[in-house]
Every structure is written in C-alpha cells, then in structure tokens.
C-alpha cells in the first residue's frame, strides 16, 4: 500500500508515523506542505505535532495550506485519510471532520498512557481490533477536548461514527476516565463515509514493546487488508 505523510512546519510526529508505516510495510512518502501535488496514495496521514506552533488555533493555519486542498480532493474520491492529534485538529479545521478540539478541561498539556475502547471495529481502520477491546495508548496534547453540536453528536452515535472512547482499564467510560473533558469521552471519530479517521491518541507510539506496547499495530494492519 502507498502512504503519504504530510509535513507542515512544526509537525513533529512525522518521523514517528513514517517509521511505523514502514515497519508495517507501507510504501511511504513524505510530502512537504508547499507542494501542490500529492503522490499516488492509498492512505494519507496528517501527523501530530504543533503545525505553525499551534498559533491562533491548533490546526487552523495548516488547514489553509496549499496541500490541504489536494487532501480534500483525495478524500472526496474516497482515499483513506488518518489524522492523528494535531492531524485530527487540522482535519476539523478543514471541515473534513466535524466538531472541534477545545482546550483540555484542566487547561494543561497532558501526556500519559490512557485506555481507549474500540467502539466501531467494522471500518477500514479498525477491523483487526475486537469490538469493545481496550487499548493502552499514549496521548499528548493541549487541545483534545472534543466538542460538537447536539445534532452532529446524534449522527455520530446513530451512524456508528465514533471510533474510540476514553475508558479505564476495566472499560468503564465515565468522567474519571476522561482525561481532557471530551464530549461522551470521544477519542476519535469517522466521517460519514468512514474513509477519514481523526484521533487524539498516538497509535504510532505503540508499535514496539521495548518502548511501550504494540496496541497501535492493528490499526495499520487493518488498513493493509
């Protein structure tokens, strides 16, 4: 499978995701944001980091870059798009995903391993996971507090567009297991066609038992199917 990782000034998880993709045998290319054309890709990843320093609003300025128009076009044609952390924020800023990521409830940057539950395992991104499977996965963000209007929230629930929810290690989804104040503990969502996934946790950090665990690997394996 061919993948492309978009690199913005201030992206800093671009190398990490590239390493993960290559480990899973993707043929990966890095794409600088000033480029006006995308290489042929089955998967486009918008990586984590602080594109443009998170200035103004996280993701806002990257959302206006040249290459993003190409990403939008590819998405419309059904190309798979994965936005991780800052990438998720950028995808909401472009409108490819609905809703917005607000400041964490405690107003502090949060980096820790949290548990998330697989809510929908019937997508191109998640078919290698079991439904309700609990993963341990690293988060690292200032603005991960997912918010959307009540209409859209209904759609998310009715159409099974919620990918993951924060939970505790026994799978309980409640305020105590919500690290950042996200609506209904949402940690990741799909668009209605389910070819776009935005998520705050970092699957690329969970690829190696020496460093953490391998709970992220199945996401990439799902995509390869």
């Amino acid at each position, binding site marked *: 499978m061919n993948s492309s990782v978009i690199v913005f*000034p*201030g992206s*800093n*998880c671009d*190398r*990490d995701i590239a*390493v*993960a993709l290559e480990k899973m045998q993707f043929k990966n290319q890095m794409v600088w944001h*000033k480029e006006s054309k995308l290489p042929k890709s089955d998967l486009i990843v918008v990586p*984590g*980091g*602080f594109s*443009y*320093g*998170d*200035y103004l609003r996280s993701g806002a300025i990257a959302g206006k870059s040249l290459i993003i128009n190409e990403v939008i076009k590819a998405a419309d044609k059904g190309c798979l798009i994965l936005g991780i952390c800052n990438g998720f924020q950028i995808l909401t800023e472009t409108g490819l995903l609905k809703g917005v990521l607000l400041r964490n409830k405690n107003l*502090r*940057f*949060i*980096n*820790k391993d949290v548990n998330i539950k697989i809510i929908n395992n019937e997508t191109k991104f998640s078919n290698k996971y079991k439904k309700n499977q609990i993963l341990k996965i*690293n988060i*690292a963000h*200032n603005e991960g507090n997912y918010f959307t209007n009540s209409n859209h929230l209904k759609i998310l629930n009715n159409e099974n567009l919620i990918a993951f929810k924060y939970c505790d290690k026994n799978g309980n989804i409640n305020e105590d297991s919500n690290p950042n104040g996200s609506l209904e503990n949402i940690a990741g969502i799909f668009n209605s066609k389910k070819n776009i996934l935005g998520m705050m946790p*970092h699957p*690329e*950090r969970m*690829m*190696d038992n*020496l*460093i*953490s665990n391998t709970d992220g690997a199945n996401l990439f394996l799902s995509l390869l199917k």
Partner: protein
Amino acid sequence: MKITNQVVEKHGLNLEEYSNIKKFLKREPNLLELGIFSAMWNEHCSYKSSRRHLKNLPTKGKQVIQGPGENAGVIDIGDDDAIIFKIESHNHPSYIEPYQGAATGVGGILRDVFTMGARPIALLNSIHFGSPEHFKTKSLLNGVVSGIGGYGNCIGIPTVAGETKFNKTYNENILVNAMAVGHAKKDKIFYSKAKGVNKSVVYVGSKTGRDGIHGASMASAEFDENSEEKKPTVQVGDPFTEKLLMEACLELMKDNSIISIQDMGAAGLTSSSVEMASKGDLGIEIHLDKVPCREENMTPYEMMLSESQERMLIILEDGKEKHAKEIFKKWDLDFVIIGKTTDTNKLTLKYNGKIEGEIPLDALASKAPVYDRKWVKKKLIKSKFDFKKLKKIKIEDALIKILSSANHSNKNWITNQYDQMVMCDTAQKSGADSAVIRIHDKEKAIAVAVDSSANYCKAHPLTGGKQIVCENWRNLISVGAKPIAITNCLNFGNPEDPKIMGEFAECLIGIKESCEFLNYPVVSGNVSFYNGTNKKNISPTPVIGGVGLIQKLEKPMDHLFKKKNSDVLLIGKTFGHLEQSVFLEEVHYILDGRPPEINLVNERNNGETVLEIIKKDLVNSVHDVSNGGLIVALAEMSMGSDFGIKIKKPKNLTNLYKYFFGEDQSRYILEVDKNNLERVEKILKNNNIFYDNIGLTQNDYFEIEDELKIDIKKLYKINNQWYNNY
C-alpha cells in the same frame, strides 16, 4: 554620549576594568564599545571568578571527543555515534517571568546542542523553588513547568527527566536549569572556530528586537527623555521558529557548506561573533545595517546587545551562499550575509559604511579579566542535637510524612505536562532513576539523569560536591548504564563574598575528586553566580547531569518490584547516618550536622558490581538508596508496582530510625529471583561487596515485621496527593 564613571558602573564594570579597556583601545571607548566590553567581561561570559577553579576539573577521557570550551561537550558512544550535551541556567529571567524564562532557557540549551550538528533527543531540567508556603512559589511552579513543557512539546523533543525541589533558600531566587542531549555522527560535528579570511558571515533565524538588553536598561536613564519606551523587554520564546531553525541547520549540515556555526545566546551577536573570530585567530567585520530587525530605529548598541532568541551566526564556505539561502528560504527564515571574516584580529562594526566601533578581539576574549577571589574553607560542624531527646514518632507516621511532603511526592503532576514519548525512543520515562533513550534505529541506548543536594553542599561543600557526582553515577548504574561523562551547572551566591567563593571552590574540589576516581569526566557546564538578594545567598547548588551508555537495550531496567517472593538485597554498608537527613528535616524540622561521607573505593566497587549483575540479567529491579534512606527507597519500589515487601528487622543495628532513615551512601537495592540468588551472591562475594538479604517481596503490602503493614495502593495515593492539593 559622554562616558562618565556612572555610565561605566551602570554597565557592571568597575573603574579598574574601565582603565584596562582604555589601555587596550589606547583611547576612550564609545558607548557601543563600552556595551560590548560590558557584555563580554561580565561574569556570565568571561567566567572571571570561576575560571581558575574550573581549570582543575578532569575533562579528558577515552570517550571524550570535545570537553569544555565549545557550545556543548561531545562523547563517543561507539560505532560512528556521538552524544552532545550540556546544561545551562536561566534562573533570573525565570523569576521575573517564569513561563518565558523557563521556555527560553530550554530554547537556549537546545541551540547549544544542535549548533554542533546534533539532533536533540532528550531534554532534562533541574528546578528549585522557594518554600511552598511562600506567596510566589505556586505561580512560579506553574509558570516554569508550563514554560518548560511549552517549549519542548512544541519543538517535539521529549522531556524525560529532571528534579524538582522546594527550599526556602530559593524564596527570592529560584533555579531553572535545563539540559539538552543530542545525537550526531562522529564525523559530522560542527565547531565555532572560524577559519579563513573573507568568508561570508551569515545571520539566520528570527529578527532582532529589543529583548533583554542589559546594559541598555542600566544606562537607559542617560539615553533620552523617552527612556521609559526603551525599557528592556523580556525575552519571549518562539519554539515554532526554533523548530524551523533546527531543521534548516541540520539540513544545511548534511553537506560541507559550513565552516563554523555558533548560536546567539547570552550577549547575542556580540558574543557569537567575538567567539568565532577569536577562536579562529581572525578578525570579523559586521555591517549592522544588514541585521534583520524587528523594530524600527534600532541602534547599533541595541543590535549588538539584544538577546532575541532563535538566531544563529554561520560562517560559510565560498560559493555556498545560494545553496544555504535556499534551505533557509524553504523554512521561511531570515538569511542575510552581514559581514565577513578578516585578518585584522579586530571586531569591526560598520553602520551605513561608517565604522561605529572597533575593538581588538583579544581584549574581549583572552585578555578578559580573571580574578583569584578570596575564599574560606568550611569546617565540618558536629551536630548539636541530641538524638535521645527527639520526640517519639512511629516509623509508619514518619514514612507517611516524608512520602506526602512536597519534596518527596510523586512528580506526575509535572511530568504529565511534558511530552515524554515523541520521537518514539523513550524506553524509560521520568520517575525512574534515569531516563533511557534509545539511539534511533540502533540497539544501544543512553541513560540520562540530573542531581543536586543543596543541603549536603551547604553543610559541607566538599563532601556535598563529592556526593552529587556519586549519586548521579548511581542513578545511571541503576538502569544498567555505564556512566560516561557529566555536564554541570554551578548555581551559587555572590562570589565577592569569601564564604560563597569558598563554597564554590570546595564543591569543585569534591566534584573533581569523584569525577577523577570514577573516571567520569566533565565535558561541559555553566556557572551561575549572584543567586540571591540583599546579601542573602542561596545554598550552594551545583547540579550534575550525567550520561551513560547501554550497549544493547534488551529490556529497560527500572526500580519497581516485578514479582512476589523475590529476595531483596541491600548492597553497601548501613551505618545509620541521620545528620542532614530527610528524616530529620521533614519529621523533626532539624537541619544540622554533616552530610554522609563517601568512600570512593566502595562507591566504585559497588557500582561496577551492580552493573555487572544487571548486565548478566540476574535482577528484576534495581534502585539506589538516596534521600530518605532505605525505607523510602523500598517504598518507592513498591508504589506503582503490584508488589510490596516484607522486611525482616535488622539483627545488628538496634536503632530502627538510623537503620531505616539513615542516608549512608553507595547503596543499592536489588530484587533477585530465588533461582538467581546463588549466582548473584557469588558475584557479590567475589567482588568483596558488603550486602544483606533484607526481606522478600509479597503481594499488596509494604510491611516491616512487628512494626508496620500498609497497603501499597494507600502508599501510592499518599505519595500522589501533594501536587493535586497544592
């Protein structure tokens, strides 16, 4: 403007120094020149009080590629890999504006490391605050922590280790020391020494503003009526620009375009240009009208003394200008040729074609003042308290008091604000004795840790200096790393006071003794004097940052108990040294007596043996015994693990307080599986190591026979509440 005595003094120069300036110039300096002398001759740049003492430190070793004298130290970790690292203070700015002060501290030290060609792979920090009750402490803590996190997180380098302490000695002067560690290829290391005449001098990075112009602030009254307008401004960090600058520099470093490169740190354009030219035995000519400025009407004085962040000076090979410019353009950064190297051995400053200042470089560098300041020795004070008269307190209560105190609480509240995982090579995060960072794409890893003990150093600087190096070495050993070299940040009070100068001199003697004996050279460092106010100096606080090597990272070693029914061995002798201990300080509010002595022979022997045992994969967990003594170390091994311990009461030491809370040095605790015990004991005996089998791990409880039994979950909770309640 006329240079009066008053103007001279406001530049921090004394009259004798001023007359030397006139001698060197053979005339009176103008204001620009005076500002430059003031920047280069101040303590921070000239090391005038410390140089004589620093000279004595051991700085060489088989693995040292570059010792002190460059932007950072460089060590050899085998193959074609080098590690480049340094620690630096940003104490005063952080007290004035904690967020920006701490953030720019991180930014500054990162530049020191990537300017040498290294990609930074880890950040550490040592932060010291006043008493938690002091009215400023809380906001300083908040600001400093979010500033450190804000910069490191944004630029995408993991902040993996550090230390945080509270002590009223820092009420009016906090300490913020940041350390950066980078990785480079051995044959791709860049130095600041200029070479060749008529080479382009290039300014890259952010524009220059009126940030932190010291001299200007002091002399501002004389400038003009609008002096209020020209008040120095706080340096504001821009980690986003630094990230671009870092990537651009690393990109340019891939080929052979750069002759030399130097970040603009303290005293900005002045110190960088002077350093590059004087090291290369050349001259340098700068056209100040070309300097990219952020504000209108900036004067040459302001440009030369500005401490705007995220800037670099590069000397390029002939014909590489266009290539280099393209790289910086790609990263949206300023790139301007502002001058050239000359053969005049002078710093020549031109503005619109006119010479505004000209100074012989040796006057600024090699001939800068050096002082042999008076210093007095500190006597070892016998403790005055009577141990028998101490209030009775249960061991359990004392332990809980310590574990719930500000200084000994779990630091998750802080470290959760730092991205520790970005770059995906952090094998051991904060919370362990050392952090462990894998070298990308390789099997090997480095271990890093920072340490200080102001109480010990205050009580007896020589012993304290010795102790911190050993403690740092122990921390690296505990994760299975072979210690290689250190950097140090020496935070002291006013060096003009012989007592303070004595603390400095003696701490350095202590550091030197340990470093020499342990073959643990100093490769970089930084001195910060004048910490304190109105004759109230801080306790001497040298901070040691160590780097060690793990040849093959198979499983990271940490201090948490892994299984039940393992034997727990205490390595090293326990004498029961309670003077200057956490127990007396936190439980009885006594800070008195001598710090624990160090026997360097035992230190080395114990450490090398523990390392051997770890390498043979014979232990489940390892922890060194430090502040709080044996009981606190054992509690730390239980909290956060699923296993506790059942400790037998000691046979020979009758006083339980001394046994459990004594801070005798050179000790480690090992958790050993029953089936490995024999092999471990054999190694210990072969190496003549004193050890004791002190108990067995067990499920759920931290227990001392017939004395106490606490649920480890409860201990964990107790240990985790201070920050959240503060």
